[in-house]
């Protein structure tokens, strides 16, 4: 006989919790396989052993109710679903395959040289400066140059600021309609025209992958009305997440010179260095799912048609799964980390993110022998995106 989920009164979107969510995660994991968040009327799961298989089981835990806390099919929260993130098979299969062809590893590998040039250009500037901000001058600077170029957006002076604002809105929107979301929405309202124009075909530089999405629509592979929505997914999801991973990696490397030495010894560790930072930071903290039937999770019942918040960040530091969960160790086995999801909804842009991060870290170790923190890092609070606002560092050039 299944038991009911314990009700707990915590607010995952409170400033204090967003700053340091680890105690909340421990509380959720300790309370049971599933808890009910009274304040929001949704279920939540935080144990690795439950989250890892659940996010893969799309037939039970569907994405069609929206990626956030709200059920987007209900009248009070209705909005159109994302044609890739918020659909399941069979519709998902068609769109995902089309996108996978456009973002083939072969295509992405072709960007390496351009990304390397950009990384070296940036690092040459930063070694002149010695002291800089690891978020705005390093991670965000790099991503806001490489990613829009790969997507194929015409550069404009307001582009960087606007794209990061869209990311902020996207991830604030996955939480409740709180003051934080309302404030971001207000700022984003001012760039609506720019936003709408940026996903149209006229905004795509020939040769970028944005243009290829439109060509897939021409060829009848995807519905024509999906093309701008798919471009939109990349405008909203492609920058902050990668930038957060990169700045977190720099932070962990600055805190632990031994780990930085490991990377310097063998720069081929760059990709695992990023992956381990992704695990600890988990840029996208949670994903929302919707139950398609009454389901028992380790003996606890979640009724049909319930929204469930999958706490990826909690699973990624669950001491029942990870040895020394809070420690940054690029030599550990990272099998099973869920920062990019699991199963058919796993992050589509991950190979772009990995290439960007790898190339930048390789350039970093080519130019820098020591990294030192010169102040406390400051968090940028968002309803669902965990990232830093600033990370003051000083480097020793080689």
């Amino acid at each position, binding site marked *: 006989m299944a038991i009911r989920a314990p009700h707990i009164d915590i607010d995952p979107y409170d400033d204090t919790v967003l700053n340091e969510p680890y105690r909340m995660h421990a509380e959720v994991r300790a309370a049971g396989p599933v808890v009910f968040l009274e304040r929001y009327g949704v279920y939540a799961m935080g144990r690795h052993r439950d989250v890892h298989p659940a996010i893969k089981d799309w037939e039970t835990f569907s994405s069609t109710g929206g990626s956030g806390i709200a059920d987007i099919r209900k009248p009070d929260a209705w909005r159109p679903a994302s044609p890739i993130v918020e659909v399941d098979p069979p519709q998902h299969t068609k769109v995902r395959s089309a996108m*996978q062809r456009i973002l083939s590893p072969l295509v992405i590998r072709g960007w390496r040289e351009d990304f390397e040039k950009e990384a070296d250009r940036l690092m040459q500037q930063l070694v002149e400066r010695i002291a800089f901000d690891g978020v705005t001058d390093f991670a965000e600077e790099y991503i806001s140059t490489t990613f829009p170029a790969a997507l194929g957006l015409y550069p404009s002076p307001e582009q960087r600021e606007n794209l990061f604002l869209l990311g902020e809105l996207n991830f604030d929107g996955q939480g409740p309609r709180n003051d934080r979301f309302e404030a971001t929405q207000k700022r984003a309202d001012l760039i609506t025209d720019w936003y709408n124009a940026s996903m149209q075909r006229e905004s795509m530089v020939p040769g970028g992958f944005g243009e290829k999405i439109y060509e897939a629509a021409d060829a009848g592979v995807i519905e024509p009305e999906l093309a701008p929505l798919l471009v939109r997914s990349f405008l909203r999801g492609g920058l902050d997440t990668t930038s957060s991973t990169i700045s977190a990696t720099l932070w962990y490397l600055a805190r632990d010179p031994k780990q930085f030495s490991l990377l310097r010894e063998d720069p081929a560790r760059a990709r695992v260095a990023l992956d381990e930072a992704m695990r600890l930071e988990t840029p996208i903290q949670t994903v929302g799912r919707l139950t398609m039937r009454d389901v028992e999770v380790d003996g606890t019942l979640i009724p049909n048609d319930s929204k469930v918040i999958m706490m990826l960040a909690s699973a990624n530091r669950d001491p029942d799964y990870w040895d020394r969960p809070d420690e940054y160790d690029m030599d550990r086995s990272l099998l099973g980390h869920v920062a990019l999801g699991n199963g058919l909804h796993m992050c589509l842009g991950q190979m772009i993110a990995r290439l960007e991060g790898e190339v930048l870290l390789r350039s970093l170790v080519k130019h820098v022998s020591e990294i030192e923190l010169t102040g406390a890092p400051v968090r940028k609070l968002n309803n669902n995106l965990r990232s830093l606002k600033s990370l003051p560092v000083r480097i020793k050039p080689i």
Partner: protein
Amino acid sequence: MANIFYKTHKGETLEIDAKPGDSVMYTALAKRVQGILGECGGSLACATCHVYVDPEWLQKLPPMSELENEMLDATACERQANSRLCCQIEISDELHGLTVTIPETQL
């Protein structure tokens, strides 16, 4: 149990006890076999678990999907007639003795 043999491009052979139901990619990662990255976790997004299957085993493997076939055109080392993505090979008792060779690079 089923034993899987992983040959490195340097000619070394590792014999691994594998659990039926796991994939050849998952087993390699769990046992920390070098040279198989499986970065996308088996979602057919990365082509970093490319292996060359010993020809005698090819017919015994699960058939190749269209997407795997396309992803194999995007591998870092050249695709050959016996290329597979090993995230798509589920281990069973019938695959006891399966031998795969790991290419020089996956990136």
